[in-house]
């Protein structure tokens, strides 16, 4: 940050940000009534003349916290702000030049000189009190900008002051949120294969077995090609086997996978074969005939799949 910038910024201290501006309407009972109803403030001194007098006041008073409300610009000015540049706009532009483009209000301290009563016509003016050096905050590096709003009655007497502090900051470069990895292509689960994927969720590799002739088959199907039986159960695989053949995929790439991607046809000790990925081995080291053992991966909460890794050397 250049010294020049710092000087231009500090030159704002003490300067008027918003010139004295009267509220649109004097303090009035209807507005007080809207406020206390909305705030569910049952204190009778705001609306009940007798109750107010009973507290030693001359009559009803406005809630102290309404002070800002009496000088608000109102709806029309909010939706169609003045195009005349104000001091406030200039300061925001200067802060923006320093990269302090974001804002968060940090605190507001109010001091009240006297209670307002219906008929009071309040005005407000705002000055810059201080602009802090750059501070590191959780939101990013920024400067605390303190201003003081002074509220006066029609005769110019101060009725309240408000120290208003905001943090003007450069948004921290948030690390791009980790994009969740794309889901693997979904298996089409139907009555003929659901048992296999359900067992996989429990990390059990099952093989369909004919209940009559006991022959094993994979991929599964409703009917035994050996004997024609529709009755079947399953056996759990030992998880031992060898690579029957494999491919190392490079292109095209699917976002769910890391490439190069090894896909193998594994022949299980039980004699059936299945397609699965390999883990714990470099693509260049995979070989036809390589002994492998079963492991599991859970690519996403709804999908568990068998994966094979090279069998430990002693098992060869």
């Amino acid at each position, binding site marked *: 940050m250049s010294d020049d910038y710092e000087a231009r910024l500090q030159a704002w201290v003490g300067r008027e940000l918003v010139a004295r501006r009267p509220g649109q309407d004097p303090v009035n009972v209807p507005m007080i009534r809207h406020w206390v109803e909305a705030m569910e403030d049952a204190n009778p001194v705001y609306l009940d003349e007798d109750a107010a007098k009973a507290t030693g006041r001359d009559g009803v008073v406005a809630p102290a916290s309404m002070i800002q409300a009496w000088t608000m610009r109102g709806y029309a000015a909010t939706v169609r702000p003045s195009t005349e540049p104000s001091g406030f706009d200039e300061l925001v532009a200067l802060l923006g030049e320093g990269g302090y483009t974001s804002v968060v209000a940090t605190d507001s301290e109010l001091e009240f000189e006297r209670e307002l009563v219906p008929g009071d016509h309040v005005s407000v003016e705002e000055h810059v009190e201080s602009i802090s050096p750059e501070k590191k905050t959780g939101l990013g590096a920024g400067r605390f900008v303190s201003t003081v709003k002074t509220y006066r009655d029609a005769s110019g007497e101060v009725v309240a002051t408000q120290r208003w502090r905001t943090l003007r900051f450069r948004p921290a470069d948030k690390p791009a949120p980790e994009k969740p990895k794309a889901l693997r*292509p979904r298996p*089409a689960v139907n009555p003929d294969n659901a048992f296999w994927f359900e067992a996989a969720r429990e990390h059990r590799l099952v093989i369909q077995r004919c209940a009559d002739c006991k022959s094993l088959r994979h991929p599964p199907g409703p009917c035994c090609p050996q004997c024609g039986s529709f009755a079947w159960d399953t056996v759990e695989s030992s998880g031992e086997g060898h690579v029957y*053949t494999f*491919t*190392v*995929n*490079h292109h095209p790439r*699917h976002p769910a996978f890391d490439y190069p991607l090894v896909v193998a046809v594994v022949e299980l000790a039980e004699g059936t074969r299945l*397609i699965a990925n390999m883990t714990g081995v470099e693509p260049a080291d995979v070989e036809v005939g390589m002994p492998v053992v079963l492991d599991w991966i859970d690519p996403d909460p709804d999908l568990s799949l068998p994966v094979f890794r090279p069998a430990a050397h002693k098992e060869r």
Partner: protein
Amino acid sequence: MSVLPGAAAIAGIGATEFSKESGRSELQLACEAVLAAVTDAGLEPSDVDGMVTFTADTSSEIHIARNLGIGELTFFSRIGHGGGAACGTVQQAAMAVATGVADVVVCYRAFNERSGERYGLGQANRPMDVSADRAAYSWMTPFGLSTPAQWVAMFARRYMHEYGATSEDFGRVAVVDRAHAATNPKAWFHGRPITLEEHQASRWIAEPLHLLDCCQESDGGQALVIVSAQRARDLPHRPALIWGAAQGSGNDQHMMTSYYRSEISGIPEMGLVGRQLYAQSSLTPADIQAAILYDHFTPLVLPQLEELGFCAKGEAKDFIADGNLALDGRLPFNTHGGQLGEAYIHGMNGIAEAVRLLRGTSANQPGDVHNVLVTAGTGVPTSGLILGADQ
């Protein structure tokens, strides 16, 4: 003996240009190809009374019939299993003609397979239902095995392991294809031959497949007109008689992933097709002067040569390395450039090339050709033809 051999002939062939972006609808491509084939046969659209295509085609015969003014159809049929359907469409047509249910049958296939839906991108993100066909992918796509190249890579690896074939042996198929495409003006790769070194240097797609082991993705259409042999003799071109027309689905057949058979280094469904073709035609491999073999991926050309009896099991690599597939070799192969070199029109363009070989009009005519063997897709339930000159 069957009524089929010699009963019907391919009398007309017609195609669109082969491109990467046709700029036209698939229906328009189909209409253009069909009209071209009918015109080539010396017939009118109104003569057509039968149509056959692939289940994979997006343009039903009724749309083409309506658009071309073909009128009434007495025979229409579709064949499944992707490129395996190619020669099967001609078998359907020949049977229809031989049995008299139709007189003039057009077989067609047209698509924007490059500018539209690209098959090479695979099945990973296809919409899912729970049909048996879709559920079959459950054993592949969750593991990242989703594309035809990847499916074929499994067979290729096992074939290499069992027979000692190498990537260079596959590459020699690509080199022959591209050499023939280089001298075929209709081929996408016209004027662009490759060397074995370029094949070896091309990037991996799915090991052991390099880029140059993989066929193109193409836009285009191809149609064929089938009539009786007798009628064909009265039409303008020398008939390509259908001496053999067969389909085959093997034991424990899967769609591109028959990995569960006791052996996967052969293509038993192609052996089944070959046996039928030779039996129907009373021909032997020695009688075949040229072959158009399906080449979506080079590795599966080798077991085709073996299954069809051109060489013994495991010896295709030597048969190829010895130059037998060249124009001056024992078995001139894919004289149009194949699907690697001319265009990938699901095998239908290869049938048209076989017809040109018999007419003597191939861009790479290897001399007199009396009998040509044509195959359809490999790895899938498939089909084949033996086409021959009039005897």
